[in-house]
């Protein structure tokens, strides 16, 4: 037991927890972060070994249900066509993300006003602009200024990732059709940056970057936060957030690395456990004052789960492309991003254009899609695919619906006996139409680029990388969980800074916005320190 309260207790050391820990450290408050996973050792990442490709389906799988490490909690997801992808460790999901790092558009904060669906955010792009820039400095962003799909941000970017043979072939296809494309903003160092070395094209971004070029928060924010005095406790799994009779959070009950129950008292608690982990802990934090879970007077904790349904569209080319060499992402297209009344869906999507696959994944793709037979024809068929696949995924905006939700599974528990989350999710008609549109358009551009065959999958089942909306932000306590600066409406010393607070999902990867939001919340807290709980 530790009854001596810390000033700020952060739960989760991933994208948002790292950012807010670093930002609050300059207040000289005593800050402790509890993380259920461990500090990562890049020398153990799959790209350092010959069996690396096999490990992305085992100990470095994106699915916690496949990975089953000591840090993971199981997720009941039979009632969802999209399965959760996450990582539990210092750095969180940034350890395994691809580093595709777009900002939201101004229109993404005004969905209701512009398109009459979902809700507007209580903040807008201009509220986050300086925090996007601050986060960019901490993470390091490669790209190119001048994208006509975004307002000018004058950000300092490192040179973009190489186009390579794959990017060149696909760019020609986009140009033939006169469609937008632009080198992706990526959280990957293309030159030495803040003590990290530059990308050497390992082709292994999504299983951890052994080179340290990809900006995962264990090697970006955390070294700075630790030097500034933040205490990080790993292998500590939070069971619940406790409250006093006045309905204020008092700290967290957690299980330490030895399996011993502990308690850490705190004046302020910050949830940073992603869109599934945060509602799980809040729903597990039941008390007389909060019988339906903490901060849940609206009944919206866990509801409005958004994923980003992904469609995968890959072309098979006759000429050899980059294959397994190089970062996965090359450029993006937002030709179909904004709502077009001539289409049969609202909102839109981003195409993330990507390179090919390693030798094992090429074989698996061929076997699963009946492009490679068992037996004598194996080798000839394999060589028609190896180093000849390139294409894209469509990141489709997912609109909030209350029936898509995280609850607690009545039976499933983690290794510490804590009830596990259950996902209930159905694809909306709007999402289906958006993915259908993306498949048609991507096939068109791949053919224009010279693809001789096309492989599609929609949705990508193990594609629930983006976990959003389950503790949404808003000004109305009856329609939101936290206010416009991240504080719980119900519990005035409880904050949420991860993707749970998203009101809508936009059609882009959320990490850059999650981190900008965490820095924005930190700034709001610092401005209000004298009357934070009023």
């Amino acid at each position: 037991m530790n009854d001596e309260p810390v000033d700020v207790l952060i739960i989760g050391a991933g994208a948002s927890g790292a950012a807010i820990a670093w930002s609050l450290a300059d207040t000289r408050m005593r800050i402790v972060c509890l993380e259920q996973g461990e500090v990562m050792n890049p020398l153990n990442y799959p790209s350092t070994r010959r069996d690396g490709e096999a490990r992305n389906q085992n100990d470095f799988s994106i699915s916690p249900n496949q990975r089953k490490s000591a840090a993971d909690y199981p997720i009941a997801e039979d009632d969802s066509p999209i399965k959760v992808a996450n990582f539990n460790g210092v750095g969180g999901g940034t350890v395994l993300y691809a580093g595709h790092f777009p900002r939201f558009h101004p229109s993404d904060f005004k969905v209701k006003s512009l398109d009459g669906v979902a809700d507007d955010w209580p903040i807008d792009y201009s509220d986050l602009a300086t925090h996007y820039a601050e986060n960019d400095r901490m993470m390091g962003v490669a790209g190119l200024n001048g994208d006509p799909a975004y307002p000018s941000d004058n950000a300092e970017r490192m040179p973009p990732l190489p186009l390579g043979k794959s990017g060149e072939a696909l760019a020609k296809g986009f140009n033939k059709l006169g469609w937008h494309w632009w080198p992706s903003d990526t959280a990957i160092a293309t030159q030495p940056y803040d003590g990290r070395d530059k990308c050497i094209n390992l082709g292994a971004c999504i299983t951890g970057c052994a080179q340290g070029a990809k900006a995962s928060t264990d090697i970006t924010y955390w070294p700075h936060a630790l030097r500034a005095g933040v205490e990080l406790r790993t292998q500590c799994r939070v069971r619940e957030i406790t409250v006093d009779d006045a309905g204020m959070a008092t700290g967290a009950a957690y299980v330490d690395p030895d399996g011993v129950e502990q308690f850490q008292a705190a004046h302020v608690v910050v949830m940073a456990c992603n869109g599934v982990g945060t509602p799980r802990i809040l729903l597990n934090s039941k008390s007389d004052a909060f019988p339906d879970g903490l901060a849940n007077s609206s009944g919206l904790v866990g509801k409005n789960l958004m994923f980003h349904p992904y469609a995968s569209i890959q072309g098979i080319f006759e000429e050899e492309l980059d294959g397994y060499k190089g970062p996965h992402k090359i450029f993006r297209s937002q030709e179909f991003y904004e709502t077009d009344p001539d289409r049969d869906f609202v909102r839109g999507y981003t195409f993330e254009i990507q390179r090919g696959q390693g030798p094992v994944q090429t074989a698996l793709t061929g076997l699963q899609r009946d492009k490679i037979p068992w037996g004598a024809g194996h080798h000839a068929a394999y060589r028609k695919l190896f180093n000849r696949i390139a294409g894209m995924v469509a990141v489709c905006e997912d609109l909030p619906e209350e029936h898509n939700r995280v609850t607690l599974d009545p039976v499933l528990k983690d290794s510490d006996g804590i009830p596990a989350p259950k996902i209930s999710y159905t694809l909306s008609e709007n999402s289906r139409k958006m993915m259908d549109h993306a498949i048609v358009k991507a096939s068109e551009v791949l053919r224009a680029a010279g693809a001789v065959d096309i492989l599609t999958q929609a949705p990508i089942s193990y594609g629930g990388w983006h976990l959003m909306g389950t503790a949404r932000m808003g000004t109305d306590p009856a329609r939101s969980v936290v206010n416009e600066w991240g504080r719980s409406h119900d519990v005035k010393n409880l904050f949420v800074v991860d993707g749970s607070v998203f009101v809508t999902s936009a059609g882009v990867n959320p990490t850059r916005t999650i981190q900008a939001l965490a820095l924005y919340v930190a700034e709001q807290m610092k401005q209000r320190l004298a009357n934070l709980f009023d």
Partner: protein
Amino acid sequence: MNTTETNFTDAQVQCLAALVEMIIPASEDYGVPGAGDGIIFADILSTTAPQHEAVAAALSALNAVAEATGGQNFATISAAGGDGENIAASFRDQHPKAAELLATITVQCYYRDDRVMRALNMEVRPPFPDGFTVDQGDWTLLDPVRNRPELYRKTE
């Protein structure tokens, strides 16, 4: 009788060896061994160990299909030059998840073999620490996009 390293019976080992060689046979044309090659198969056997139960169940399913079709187990039919390919096809139809498990392990081990990597013109090493070279490509391709008007919606 069990093999000491894997806990598979000899019959199970023979069945698995026959199947993996059938999935990826040796090829003189491409200068590559089959997946039943001694070094590759040893890798397959050690890789299957953590999934012993699932692999054993998959092999039982394969043998059940073989016995229903040809009256003998899969290894015996294959060794005798029998209709192993059709049996394997029926196995894939009737037990797709079991077939996928065995095929996945096979390709995971096959495509990290030195000889196979060399035949694919790959360097025989992990990606780190040397990395790879990727050409910058032709950035003038971006010129038409640079000249496009703004395509985002303004909100004010």
